[in-house]
């Protein structure tokens, strides 16, 4: 067993875990933060994206111990209390989700895109930046619209 401690959504957590425990497993099974999803086993789909020290990372592609000491934000920690994050609001407003399974990862990735690429995102940029996130439901059309709108709203 390996001891891990990190801050998740602002709260300190510590646990003893099997060293093979993936960060996503730790979040979902130990902390019961089931908003972060698993859609693949080859780091392709992005359903598992969380923020680690402010950067988007695929939580299926690292062990829990690799996030030791880090500041982790999951979809559950994105909103500011009852007030939704502008990107969450934009996904709802623009129908950027259907089954909702890819959505937490999409929203977390989108916030990161805005941080890196700014608030005025064109169609091409958003589509290229979504290379690591798969959605089988929406055909991406409304996700792209939502991210553009969310980016503006984050100004």
């Amino acid at each position, binding site marked *: 067993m390996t001891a891990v401690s990190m801050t998740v959504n602002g709260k300190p957590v510590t646990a003893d875990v099997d060293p093979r425990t993936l960060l996503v497993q730790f979040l979902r099974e130990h902390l*019961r933060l089931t*908003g972060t999803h698993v*859609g693949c086993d080859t780091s392709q789909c992005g359903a598992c994206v969380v923020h680690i020290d402010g950067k988007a990372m695929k939580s299926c592609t690292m062990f829990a111990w690799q996030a030791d000491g880090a500041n982790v934000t999951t*979809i559950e920690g994105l909103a500011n209390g009852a007030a939704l994050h502008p990107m969450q609001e934009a*996904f709802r407003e623009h129908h950027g989700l259907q089954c*909702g*399974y890819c959505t937490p990862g999409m929203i977390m990735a989108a916030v990161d895109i805005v941080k890196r690429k700014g608030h005025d995102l064109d169609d091409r940029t958003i*589509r290229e930046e979504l290379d690591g996130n798969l959605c089988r439901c929406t*055909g991406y059309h409304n996700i792209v619209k939502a991210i553009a709108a969310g980016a503006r709203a984050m100004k």
Partner: protein
Amino acid sequence: MSATGIGAAVRRKEDHRFITGKGQYTDDISRPGETRAVFVRSPHAHAKIRKIDTSAAQKMPGVVAVLTGEQLAADKIGHLICGWMIHSKDGSPMKMAPHPAIASGKACYVGDPVALVVAETLTQARDAAEKVAVDYEPLPAVVDPAKAKAGAQIHEVAPKNTIYEWHLGDVKAVEAAFRSAKHVTKLDIVNNRLVPNAMEPRVAIGEYDTGNDSFTLWNTSQNPHVARLVIAAFIGMAPEHKLRVIAPDVGGGFGSKIFIYPEEVACLWASKRTGRPVKWTSDRSEAFLADAHGRDHVTHAEMAFASDGKILALRAKTIANLGAYMSTFSSSVPTYLYATLLSGQYDIAHIYCEVDAVYTNTVPVDAYRGAGRPEATFVVERLVEVGAREQGMDPAELRRKNFVRNFPHQTPVIMTYDAGDYNASLKKAMEIADVKGFAKRRRDAARNGKLRGLGYSTYIEACGIAPSQAVGSLGAGVGLWESAEVRVNPTGSVEILTGCHAHGQGHETTFAQVVADRLGIPIENISVVHGDTDKVQFGMGTYGSRSGAVGISAIVKALDKVEAKAKKVAAHMLEASESDIVFKDGKFTVAGTDKAAAWGDVALNAYIAHKFSGQELEPGLKEGAFYDPTNFTFPAGCHICEVEIDQETGETRVVNWTAVDDFGTVINPMIVEGQVHGGIAQGVGQALLEGAVYDKEGQLVSGSFMDYAMPRAENFPPFNIDTTVTKCPSNPLGLKGCGEAGAIAAPAAVINAITDAIGTEEVTMPATAQTVWAALQKANRMRPAAE
């Protein structure tokens, strides 16, 4: 139109939980004392299982049980079944081979479960699964459907690996029409095999309650009631009233979550054997091996034309690969969901179709978004397009010339089209796509060394599945009606119980819109209950674009009853005759007076029952209805795809997409557009990117997202979506259904556009850069140098 009623783009009620990470999918459920299951799966496509030694695995840390197919059989757990009987031409019934949830004696595809390891943790189960020693004797594998009849026989019941040899139509009339034809267009078509890949992998949690001798199954299902029925009645796990099936939020399905799968049966069984809840969560790689695949047809098709371009007849011969076992609805897909749509939007007097369904050593194939109808549309729309090119006619003009214009229209392949205006959708799509400006865009592209092409697909589908008597006469083992219950609470809020089950379609919103519209109450006061066999009495689930046309029609029928009963209550309250009560905008009034009662007051009075006696009226306000459709519905439309191809690399970009669809009445245009977007993406995925490839030994070589090209955001331009409306005459709101249209229309539009660009018809799906490049090279070699 009110802000939340029929026709309004209401933002979805379900979204709050999804965008905040509070959705509840099956894998999010954790049962007290639960164990984790891992399946040992056959690495061989076809092999005898000589012996399974579980002793080493049993001794591994945390192991609760290691179970095999022999134990399953000893416990008399029944086989999985296919619920749609198809008869061959000679009258013999389809050859359904036994399909145990865990193979015993023989494995028939790579991924066939051969043992189940149950352990305290997932890691322990995985570690122990490695220790299960299976002694296989590999047998020759049958992979290519076109060669299946000559391959090693897979199942005793099916000589030549043939499940059925079915046909539809009048062969003599078709032959005569071909003899009189001026021109015949012939095509060989492979409809590529696809992996549905809903982003949420399948999950099953089985739990046995010793106190009540009852089971609960949590699963990722589009139709929990059908799962319960099959697992109770055919598999014999427990009587129906002792089995509860709960499908919570479902993360996409596209058909793949309709079926009753081995893992669900095995987890239930294992929960009784171990006395612990047993949870299995599929990996993505496992999903590739174990989820039912889609399509996989090999077809030769011909279309006969008169000298004026009128279509005289169509004939098709299809080999359909159903995989190693017959999945739940597999037999219906290449027959009644396929050949019945071969008339397309056209008035074709004579059609004949033969379908041979075969077993191969591949994972079972069943319905995937569109199910049979994309395959039919591809055949028809390719024939029409190529036919136009061969005869030097404009493809839009040829279509227009042949459109069905008078309704109802009886096709030679069972269907009676009830309403449509195919010319209207074609015309509107051509305007939006600026077909007039295409020649210039093509010249401009050529200046940059690019080839531009434009392709049409004027598709039709049969949805609203389906009139029970009709499907019963065609072999369905179930009726395909839908149920609804409208429960009005004493305070006037409403719960709608439906047998449909959303997996991304937004039923919690659209269904509530219908009720808000009808009862004049705020949409916030309405909730939708679905996906639990203990809450909803029965239902047939969500697939085949049926939830609107069938499910909502059932709700409307229940609302009729609620309104009738509420009027009775209002009559007592207002001391008026029931026939004088008018209900409008959430208010009951007495005609010609100013006496009125609000919805909430009437609901309350229905429950306090102070204004009427029990002899006069039953208290309460709750009504249920079963709605059985009287016809299929016929969504149709026109999709136009414009592609640009890099001559050097063959890389194809979709640069414009126009869709004009006729779905009848639209309840929520935002949701409908979303459905169209998603369908197009899957259709374009089939045409350009996706293909499940097995090698000669039956190994799935495209078995992960690394090798199976899933469509990504950068594969698409923004879509231009519009609608035309002819209402469906057979259901109360005029709904047709929209969930599958894009996937049905898109592949033909893409391939028609590519072949238009490169000037050769020899392009197979998926039209990857390599495929297109090779076709271009071949065409260039064949082209006379002078050209």
